[in-house]
């Protein structure tokens, strides 16, 4: 409790600060974050109460009021770093000559790296810089790492004002010159020499992880330094635009980079949990069955025969059955990999999921997902073991569906939901759309998820239009947001 009387009073927010915050919020909205007016007001209210010169607190105050979704944190951080990179004395970029007072100076670095033959002056030789990098990582000295990061960016990135290249280019140049893998090896050798116990794998492993996390930290410092310099060169607004990355939910499945793919993978499992919850809720919805007369009369006895508490029968929940049919041909390769992850995640949530993959032939892959704990292994097995090529390995939806109907059609029941995943690019084969109609007649619902933008449908060899009349819904699913809205639609 507040036993102290000198409680900090809210400060007044000046015009200038207000403009600054509003500009920042505009930049956030530009990056796609949904910031509402009330949140804007909250943020301004919040910064009245904190010491504004404390950058970390300032950042958390803004984050907790403006960012309400963990997936948006990265975007927020980028915008924050760009927008506020040049504010506050310790973040100003010194001129080339006066980096003595605010930067962790070279002197400081030298002091840290004592035992080196300092050559005086401000030009470190590459060897000295490498040695300092090594020492900084060995000791895990953060301020020294920052110093090293600044100097190596200055030296290696070759940044010139007005040069129209992205930050990643400079990052690449800097990292290439630092040779971090080599440094890691050297650190580990050193470790082995000093501990003198090369047999203990676990210790070695732990040490490696420790160094790796330090190197990660260094890399972040380097990125921050590059960003700072770019902002100084180009101005805040321009930088905020160029650094804009799509939010995780807007990443296109078809063109996702490797890191983005990893992010998507992590996002899938909560989504399938949600899907499961949705379907389950649907099962339990209308929890009350018909009136249970016997129990109602029984319960009424305690109120003198007045039926105060009507009792209802419990409805019998049914288990949803799902059949997933996925195109894994080359044209949707990136989507297919994602699809397989999705299928894997779905089969973990529901007991009755059967999965099928096809190109021009079709094969059931349910057993490949069963009991396999590692998704990558499962995907690998699907790609190698499933018998999906019939003639030439070009998608043939008509034939694949024909096979499906012939072999598995009898397993479709009135409670089966069928999900078809594919772009319906049929290489001008016969569509055989009656197969989908037949499925539709027998199943509870047929949904088609298409990874192509709506505007490409029915162009070229795409024949979604042939099938969609028989589907309960045809959805463009190019990113998580759309996948989510599909899941919402189900409920």
């Amino acid at each position, binding site marked *: 409790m507040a036993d102290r009387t000198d409680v900090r009073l809210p400060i007044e927010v000046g015009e200038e600060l207000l403009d600054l915050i509003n500009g920042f919020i505009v930049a956030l909205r530009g990056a796609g974050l949904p910031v509402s007016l009330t949140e804007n007001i909250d943020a301004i209210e919040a910064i009245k109460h904190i010491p504004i010169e404390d950058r970390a607190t300032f950042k958390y105050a803004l984050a907790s009021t403006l960012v*309400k979704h963990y997936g948006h*944190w990265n975007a927020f951080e980028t915008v924050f770093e760009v927008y506020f990179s040049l504010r506050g004395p310790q973040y100003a970029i010194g001129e080339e000559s006066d980096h003595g007072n605010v930067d962790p100076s070279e002197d400081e670095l030298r002091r840290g790296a004592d035992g080196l033959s300092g050559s005086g002056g401000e030009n470190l030789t590459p060897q000295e810089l490498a040695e300092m990098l090594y020492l900084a990582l060995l000791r895990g000295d953060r301020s020294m790492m920052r110093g090293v990061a600044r100097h190596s960016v200055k030296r290696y990135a070759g940044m010139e004002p007005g040069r129209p290249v992205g930050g990643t280019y400079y990052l690449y140049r800097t990292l290439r010159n630092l040779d971090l893998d080599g440094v890691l090896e050297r650190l580990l050798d050193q470790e082995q020499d000093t501990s003198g116990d090369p047999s203990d794998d676990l210790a070695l*492993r732990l040490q490696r*992880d420790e160094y790796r996390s330090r190197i990660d930290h260094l890399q972040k410092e380097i990125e921050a330094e590059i960003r700072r310099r770019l902002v100084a060169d180009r101005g805040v607004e321009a930088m905020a635009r160029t650094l804009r990355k799509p939010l995780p939910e807007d990443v296109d499945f078809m063109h996702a980079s490797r890191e983005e793919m990893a992010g998507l993978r992590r996002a899938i499992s909560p989504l399938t949990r949600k899907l499961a919850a949705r379907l389950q809720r649907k099962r339990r919805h209308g929890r009350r069955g018909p009136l249970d007369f016997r129990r109602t009369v029984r319960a009424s006895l305690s109120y003198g025969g007045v039926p105060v508490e009507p009792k209802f029968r419990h409805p019998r929940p049914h288990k949803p059955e799902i059949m997933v049919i996925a195109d894994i041909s080359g044209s949707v390769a990136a989507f297919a990999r994602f699809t397989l992850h999705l299928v894997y995640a779905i089969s973990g949530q529901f007991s009755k999921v059967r999965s099928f993959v096809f190109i021009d032939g079709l094969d059931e892959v349910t057993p490949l997902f069963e009991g396999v*704990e590692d998704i990558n292994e499962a995907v690998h097995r699907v790609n190698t073991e499933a018998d999906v090529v019939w003639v030439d390995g070009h998608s043939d939806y008509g034939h694949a569906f024909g096979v499906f109907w012939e072999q598995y059609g009898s397993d479709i029941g009135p409670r089966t939901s069928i999900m078809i995943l594919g772009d319906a690019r049929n290489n001008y084969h016969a569509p055989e759309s009656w197969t989908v109609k037949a499925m539709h007649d027998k199943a509870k619902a047929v949904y088609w998820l298409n990874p192509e933008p709506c505007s490409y449908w029915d162009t070229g060899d795409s024949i979604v239009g042939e099938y969609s009349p028989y589907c309960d819904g045809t959805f463009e699913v190019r990113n998580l947001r759309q996948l989510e809205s599909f899941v919402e639609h189900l409920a």
Partner: protein
Amino acid sequence: MSSRFFDVASVQDELRAVDYLCDESIAGVVYLADRLDKPVLIEGPAGTGKTQLGKSVAEITGARLIRLQCYEGLDEAKALYEWNYKKQLLRIQAEQGGEHEWDDVSDDIFSDEFLLTRPLLEAIRADEPVVLLIDEVDRVEVETEALLLEVLSDYQVSIPELGTIEAKQVPLVFLTSNNTRELSEALKRRCLYLHVDYPDVEREKRIVLTKVPDITENLADQIARVVRSIRRIELKKAPSVSETLDWARTLVLLGVERIDEQTAAETLNILLKYQSDITKTLRDLGSADGVSV
């Protein structure tokens, strides 16, 4: 409205005094929640001390902790208030053949006496300082979330028969969520958002040192590092802080002074709850090279 905390650092210190080690962001948000009179929505993986934060804050502020555990099917009657209709019925029956007019009776049975308060209303009506902890709010349906909105934004509850009950004191409210579903925008907008992640090595080590008596600094350090390495592996369920603590206690009981591969392999089942995760981790830790970053 008096403030409960002096500044961010004091929140951190006070929480440390009750054995809750938090970083600056957690302390900062708690501080702001107090100053802005806003609820805090805490999200993050299971077992990172989300619920404990609510409890610890109650402890340092000397407030009563009122806890509402959410579950699917939670409704108004369990969260807000309920009319004690059995008692109402008795009242009506007692009145049979009596002298009172029906209007009097009906006024009477919808009075305070027949109202059963549930956690939310109780937190609002309390005279003493209160910390309201709404646990696992992601478990309730979207529709039920709406029940919370009035309490969270205005600290009041409207009961049609009685009118609006306003809070006598503004409670500190913590909502926790394991993020099994996306909470509604309306709810999020009313809260400060705090994401609690696994602690870094240094903090985890200090947590182990604080919570496990008789542990050596060396062992705690090693435990924290092993756990960090395990969390880097892609697992079904990464070890939580509470599992780390269980592991630490076990190792102390076994008299282990230094973890080697053998000990790790034998006690890993405390840290990980899935057989597949255990095999995967053993395979991974066994190779000095480890996962590619």
